[in-house]
């Protein structure tokens, strides 16, 4: 892959309102590990962090750089060829077919005339195959299940073929097996060089698949490291409160996080 892209936060501060809640990140480098998870309780700032990383929000102070260039100031098309972003929800205005949604991922690669090249068609075919929607490629979004729709969105982001892909809760509202399938798709792409950064709700899934976890708590990074170091009872009790309990898988000693009554 040659030199690896690095997405770096430098002394970033961000607040939606001047005197309200603030996200403060003195330093953070993303894009080194194959699969990095951003975890933390609701409202801690995970999605805001991801939007800052994607250049959708500009920091009030400090900077977010991709290899030294500010993401908020880069041309969106130039940025999109290197850095992908998939939001939590992609509400469709019209009833696109699956293949159309996936082909939209190639937007930043197209010229003014926007004729699909062989590279575009390959990327779309690969993405459809990876998420297992080849058979449904002509089906309209409205005829898909929630899980299939989410996989179609994911395929669109994969077809973009960026160096770093940011995902906001890619497994939200999916059944266990569907969620694991999505994580496996991401892990497979990560094994081929894609660097994935995903906001994760499910700590067990995050612990199982991620190489690194960033724990965000009340607008600050409370911990950052391998899952085994982050998913400890002490850290999680501090972040999530006392309605939580951490067990160990008997065979691997990997942590399992459960809710407690």
């Amino acid at each position: 892959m040659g030199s690896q892209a690095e997405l770096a936060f430098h002394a970033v501060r961000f607040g939606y309102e001047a005197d309200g809640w603030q996200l403060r990140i003195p330093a953070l480098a993303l894009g080194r590990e194959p699969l990095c998870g951003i975890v933390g309780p609701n409202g801690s700032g995970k999605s805001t962090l991801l939007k800052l990383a994607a250049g959708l929000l500009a920091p009030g102070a400090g900077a977010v750089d991709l290899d030294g260039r500010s993401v908020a100031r880069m041309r969106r098309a130039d940025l999109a060829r290197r850095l992908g972003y998939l939001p939590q929800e992609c509400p469709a205005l019209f009833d696109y077919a699956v293949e159309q949604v996936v082909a939209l991922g190639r937007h930043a690669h197209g010229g003014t005339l926007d004729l699909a090249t062989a590279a575009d068609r390959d990327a779309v075919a690969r993405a459809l195959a990876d998420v297992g929607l080849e058979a449904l490629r002509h089906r309209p979004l409205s005829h898909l299940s929630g899980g299939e729709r989410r996989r179609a969105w994911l395929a669109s982001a994969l077809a973009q073929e960026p160096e770093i892909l940011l995902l906001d809760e890619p497994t939200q509202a999916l059944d266990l097996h569907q969620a694991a399938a999505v994580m496996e798709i991401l892990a497979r792409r990560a094994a081929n060089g894609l660097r994935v950064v995903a906001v994760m709700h499910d700590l067990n899934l995050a612990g199982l698949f991620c190489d690194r976890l960033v724990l965000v708590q009340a607008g600050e990074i409370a911990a950052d490291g391998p899952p085994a170091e982050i998913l400890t009872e002490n850290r999680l009790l501090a972040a999530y409160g006392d309605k939580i309990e951490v067990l160990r898988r008997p065979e691997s000693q990997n942590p399992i996080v459960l809710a407690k009554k």
Partner: protein
Amino acid sequence: MAKKSKIYAFLAVFAVFLAVFPWIGAEKLSFRQVFGFVVGDWTADGMIFFQIRFPRVLLGLLAGGALAMAGAALQVIFRNPLAEPWTLGIAGGASLGAFLARVCPFLWFALGPLNTAQALALLGAAAALGLVLSLARRSATGAQTLLLAGVTLGVVCGGAIMVISGFISPWKLAEFHRWLLGGLDAADWASVGALAALAVPGVALLLVQARNLNPLGLGEDMAAGQGVDVARVRRWTAIGAGLASAGVAAVAGPIGFVGLLAPHAVRKIVGPDARLVLPCSFLFGGALLAACDALGRWAAAPLEVPVGALTAVLGGPLFLALLARRR
């Protein structure tokens, strides 16, 4: 390739209408007389055909096309399938501006195909667009609120036109009666030129943005992630749609629902891809407005029904049906 043949079908309808509709009207024209100029014989039929009917049909095709394409694009940037120049109040604002320029002698000034009616129509369209855009930016504004605001704005502008009319002599007003309801009967080559001066750049701007409108169909964040500069696309699309709507209003007054009917019909046929929807909406919207105008001339001959009144009667119920289905 089926998609390509659909574009050709729209193009064929557009061309056939352009060739056939000039023959429809109060005066029956003879083919031999109309084309008498070929053998150096300029006839009254030829004059009617080339100086009155043909520019009028062309005006209808251009105006309908501009409105339909503006509607198709506005529906995407406002994320509202019922948005179009009329329902957003843009046509109303532009008409008020154009009316002011036409009735106030000190506001009227013309230079070739350009005149102050266009300038004030643009100003009115810009004011209306600015208002609905700022409303849409507030996250709490629902889709229905936006439409309610747009339609209200149209009614306010219509009311303002009526108030101003009260101060104008009835003779002068008779001149504007048709225009007030949206009409193409003042058509000549000068008005075709005046429409083209604004509509052509507007339509060109929209066509350039077509490919950027597709990712917006899946939400602003998704589009931004895929490399679309959302603010820029919204701005240029609004400018293009504003130019097109103002151009139509300055020449033909407020014509409603073409921008709603045509894109909906086109999406049913070619799907939601804006790169197809925009040009096909232009062709179909143009054909639709020219057909309504021909119907208005034919049905009440030798009198005429203003085309804006016809599109409102035909398109209004569709708007209500779509509004009901959204619940």
